[in-house]
């Protein structure tokens, strides 16, 4: 049987059950007709979630207590995989690399995209041109971007060391250097700040002008207005970008894979956590250990996100009841 036919059959039977249950439930008046319609409308997402997210997550948690190489029958090993993880120096290195990357790239890209957005929000000439030029690089992502930067950072023929030469500086070996390879990936990530910049720009343009006018009448200076009006007003936008940026940074894979030919780089200086997970699963076929790594990654991301959410109480400003962007239609 064609593989897609099996899949189609699974989906079709799921829908047969769903429609049956909804019909029965409305007939017996357990739920009203609109509730039934609601569940049918969101059912594709629910099925996708169960099949490709929730189900696999439970499965991988179970798998993390087994030893399985895909060929021999899986054997239950209890907490062995987690004990192995605790003593695995490569995992320690992968966590170090990943956290260092997140800690460097998220604040730097936040600061850069916010600074550029502030500059663009000054009614400067040629804003459309600037916006396009700054945004365009974020279209060159993944493999294409990494390949380009392999050559930008090439120690001999590369663009960056060529520029440094002009200033009489002998540039480092970048991706071939234990120390400079991670900073190079961070620099590379800064090239695609355009998307965040546009989000900040929109946030800045939504700050009510009356606030600035009132502050001006009160005689406050430019920095005071920035600290007391602009930053609090756009803090929810910053918060959103920091959370998504952090989650994205913890999942970096393609850059490390392409730069190091899936190796990990000099002294494993580019062994990102997801790359290490990938190697364990699809090179060493240690499905149980890879699943344990996946859960360690998940817990790390959840803790980091929780910390940012916790900390947000101190710096994110939500104005209660203001009919803001939330209720206004933005016509692009």
């Amino acid at each position: 049987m064609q593989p897609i036919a099996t899949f189609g059959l699974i989906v079709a039977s799921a829908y047969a059950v769903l429609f049956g249950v909804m019909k029965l439930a409305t007939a017996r008046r357990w739920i009203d007709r609109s509730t039934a319609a609601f569940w049918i409308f969101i059912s594709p997402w629910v099925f996708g979630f169960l099949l490709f997210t929730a189900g696999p997550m439970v499965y991988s948690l179970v798998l993390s207590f087994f030893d399985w190489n895909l060929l021999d029958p899986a054997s239950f090993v209890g907490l062995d995989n987690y004990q192995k993880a605790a003593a695995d120096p490569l995992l320690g290195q992968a966590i170090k690399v990943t956290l260092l990357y997140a800690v460097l790239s998220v604040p730097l890209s936040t600061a850069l995209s916010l600074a550029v957005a502030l500059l663009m929000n000054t009614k400067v000439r040629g804003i459309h041109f600037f916006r396009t030029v700054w945004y365009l690089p974020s279209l060159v992502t993944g493999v294409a971007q990494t390949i380009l930067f392999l050559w930008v950072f090439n120690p001999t023929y590369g663009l960056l060391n060529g520029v440094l030469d002009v200033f009489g500086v002998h540039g480092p070996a970048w991706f071939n250097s234990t120390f400079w390879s991670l900073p190079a990936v961070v620099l590379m990530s800064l090239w695609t700040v355009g998307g965040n910049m546009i989000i900040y720009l929109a946030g800045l343009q939504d700050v009510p002008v009356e606030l600035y006018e009132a502050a001006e009448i009160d005689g406050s200076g430019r920095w005071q207005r920035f600290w007391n009006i602009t930053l609090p007003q756009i803090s929810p936008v910053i918060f959103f970008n920091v959370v998504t940026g952090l989650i994205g940074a913890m999942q970096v894979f393609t850059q490390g894979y392409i730069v190091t030919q899936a190796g990990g780089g000099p002294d494993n200086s580019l062994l990102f956590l997801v790359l290490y997970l990938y190697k364990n699963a699809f090179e060493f076929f240690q499905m149980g250990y890879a699943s344990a790594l996946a859960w360690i990654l998940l817990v790390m991301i959840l803790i980091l996100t929780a910390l940012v959410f916790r900390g947000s109480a101190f710096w994110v400003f939500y104005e209660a009841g203001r009919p803001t962007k939330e209720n206004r239609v933005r016509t692009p």
Partner: protein
Amino acid sequence: MSGPRELSRPGKAFAFLSLLVGSFVFAYPFLWMVATSLRTNQGVARAGINLWPIQWRFANYTEGLASFPFWRYLGNSVLSTVIPVVGTVLISSLAGFAFARIPARGAGVTFAVVLATMLLPGEVTIVPQFILFRTLNMMDTLYPIILPALFGSPFFIFLFRQFYLRLPTALTDAARIDGAGWFRTWWSIYLPLSQPIVVAAAVLQFMSSWNNFLTPAIYLTTDTWKTLPLALAGFSSVNSTDTTLLMATTIVVIAPCIAIFFLAQRHIVGGISFSGIR
């Protein structure tokens, strides 16, 4: 630097100049890539940071594309991009409409779950998904790349819901009085009205599917189904000296993204701005 209006003349000049210098720095790697794709191999060694090729070589493009089954890979990339784009936009719009307009028990809690799933890293599920698709006998096919993207994305559902919430409820009432069911109301009124979000979501999904690397790298092993990013990755490891061909091929691969950006620029900027505001 706060209010848009009160900047002094030197302040404005400073902003303009910084942006200009920054644009130059940001555009340079890109232009340099285009220049490299048009040089001879000897030219690369001598060029350094110069942009203008001394000897033009357009054959890099034809030779780069001839070095792997380009049309086959292109077809696979198109398939594994277009189907998820259409699927995810329709499904997300449908769900967003339900969350915004259909009164139902449990809707609020379900929406919170949708939002929470945005925080989940997809990488956690790569091992079990691999086992699932292996069991379904779908190794080395496009199904593992296409199927998970068909069921709507929490982020797009959120965008559509926010957009539909801002439309007047009178639209729904009028349609329902005319006898239209929920599905007709969505399909012939709400979906067409949400064109800006449709375009923005389609473009974002296009970019992520077109550039997708992790899942193709896991599932696709033969030329039959490989996609363009895999070609680039393979290229860079096999002929690592042929920079010129590699750059030419890279430009061909990213060209659709850039073309789409210029076609839909207004909507992308609008959609991205809309998406970032909570």
